[in-house]
């Protein structure tokens, strides 16, 4: 392969990985923007989406229904988390909510291990998804292009929702000034529930992409994606939705870029170098690339 082709191929790689991170970060940011809390149990929503696919395949659910079912379950899970774990703590400070979300995450992992299995469960994805096609000299994987497509589709849909619907506008308003949003007669519970449902949908989509790549679902798989999402969200400016997307792509580009250019002897330090770059960005822009405006919480 010529140098130029490798470069372009790596750019496609970065776009695809960054897209997955962007979806993950967006899911965290939607909830943060409204409630001012990082939901570390976000990763377990991915896991639940994965188990839904696993059980659907085992239970012979028609393939066409599996994806909608998994997304629905992911949204319902997020909504239930809000209802059961976070609503009783409404108005508590960010630290309390953060620790609660860690607890929710830990409890769910425990339940997966005890009720399902400590072993990974295979999720056979149809062969059509694991193939690839050629564009000129470039080999583009189906999953890779799906994740790029899904990212843009979800960002597009979310933008439409946030701009065109009352609930969407309400979520944006709540992100700026929650009490004043209530003065508009909007039900706080509805707005917050909607934010969680959207974050669940985003987690569901990224969960499906994540699982399509790994081919299995295991009880502890949620931790790494939520960590990446957290870094991407911080990088973009926590609570800022555009920032979350940009942060995701930025993180993807850093990771792929370092993998491509670092010599073998330095590669073991890749993650350390990637995180140092993130720290460097934050030193110059502590509020992230797109620092969130000061906002008023419920």
């Amino acid at each position, binding site marked *: 392969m010529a140098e130029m082709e490798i470069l372009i191929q790596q750019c496609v790689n970065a776009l695809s990985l960054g897209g997955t991170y962007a979806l993950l970060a967006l899911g965290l940011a939607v909830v943060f923007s409204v409630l001012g809390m990082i939901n570390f149990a976000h990763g377990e929503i991915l896991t639940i989406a994965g188990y839904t696919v696993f059980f659907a395949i085992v239970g012979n659910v028609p393939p066409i229904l599996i994806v909608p079912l998994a997304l629905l379950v992911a949204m319902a899970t997020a909504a239930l988390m809000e209802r059961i774990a976070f609503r009783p703590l409404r108005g508590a400070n960010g630290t309390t909510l953060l620790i609660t979300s860690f607890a929710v995450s830990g409890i769910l992992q425990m339940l997966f291990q005890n009720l399902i299995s400590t072993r990974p469960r295979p999720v056979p994805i149809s062969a059509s998804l694991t193939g690839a096609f050629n564009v000129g000299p470039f080999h583009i994987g189906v999953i890779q292009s799906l994740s790029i497509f899904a990212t843009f589709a979800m960002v597009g849909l979310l933008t439409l929702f946030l701009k065109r619907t009352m609930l969407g506008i*309400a979520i*944006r308003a709540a992100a*700026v000034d929650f*009490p*004043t949003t*209530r*003065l*508009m*007669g909007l039900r706080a519970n509805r707005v917050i529930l909607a934010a969680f449902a959207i974050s669940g949908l985003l987690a569901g989509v990224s969960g499906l992409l994540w699982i399509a790549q790994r081919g299995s679902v295991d009880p502890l798989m949620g931790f790494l994606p939520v960590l990446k999402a957290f870094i991407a969200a911080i990088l973009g400016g926590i609570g800022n939705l555009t920032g979350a997307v940009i942060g995701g792509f930025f993180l993807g580009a850093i990771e792929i870029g370092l993998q491509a250019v670092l010599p073998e002897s330095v590669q073991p330090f890749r993650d350390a170098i990637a995180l140092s770059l993130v720290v460097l960005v934050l030193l110059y822009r502590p509020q992230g690339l797109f620092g969130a405006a000061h906002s008023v919480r419920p």
Partner: protein
Amino acid sequence: MPLLEVESLAVNYGPIKAVLNVGLTVESGEIVTVLGANGAGKSTSLQAIVGLLPIQQGRVRFDGHDITGESTERIVRRGLTLTPEGRRIFAPLTVEENLRIGAATQGKGGDIAALWDQMMELFPILASRRKQLAGTLSGGEQQQLAIARSLMSKPKLLLLDEPSLGLAPIVVELIFDLIKRLRGLGITILVVEQNVHQALDIADRGYVVSGGSVVLSGTAAELKTSPDVQKAYMGHG
């Protein structure tokens, strides 16, 4: 029966006992003003009336219902809303979106179009700024947007918290004119102001709050001539 009746209200603002004993009434169709120095407990009272702050003691009745302890969203749906101090417009949203969200209580009926036309008539400047981000408006325009946004919920009673704060004199004039016009539209108004002159010019009655309690009340004319008011708030020695 008065439209709004507040009885011996006490409210804490964090650890501070900000309101100790505020009682007031507003009759349908009136403009009533609440006067007082900074920190007297005026804003805190308004926020407690609309349910944004918890009420420690006392009762609030609105339109024949006891609304003490009700949620803000329910109170707003009853026809009582607040245009908060400092305007609190949604800066990253457009003017149009700010108004749309103001009409959140109106459901999907055709009323919204009529309301919209009414706002464009009342606030012609907003019509020309429709697609602009609210944060880019001038202070006076933002105040108009904040009031228009409140009106989109079709309130029976509008609470205005310091509508003239930080505005140029000519804009202050405009805002007070507007408040008078609102009465003409059948909206009852309770306005908190530090701009005592102008507030008493447009109001029917007024209350003076000091140290968290109502210390004086009367018609606008009575208050204007009250030596206490003159001395404390109107700069006359």
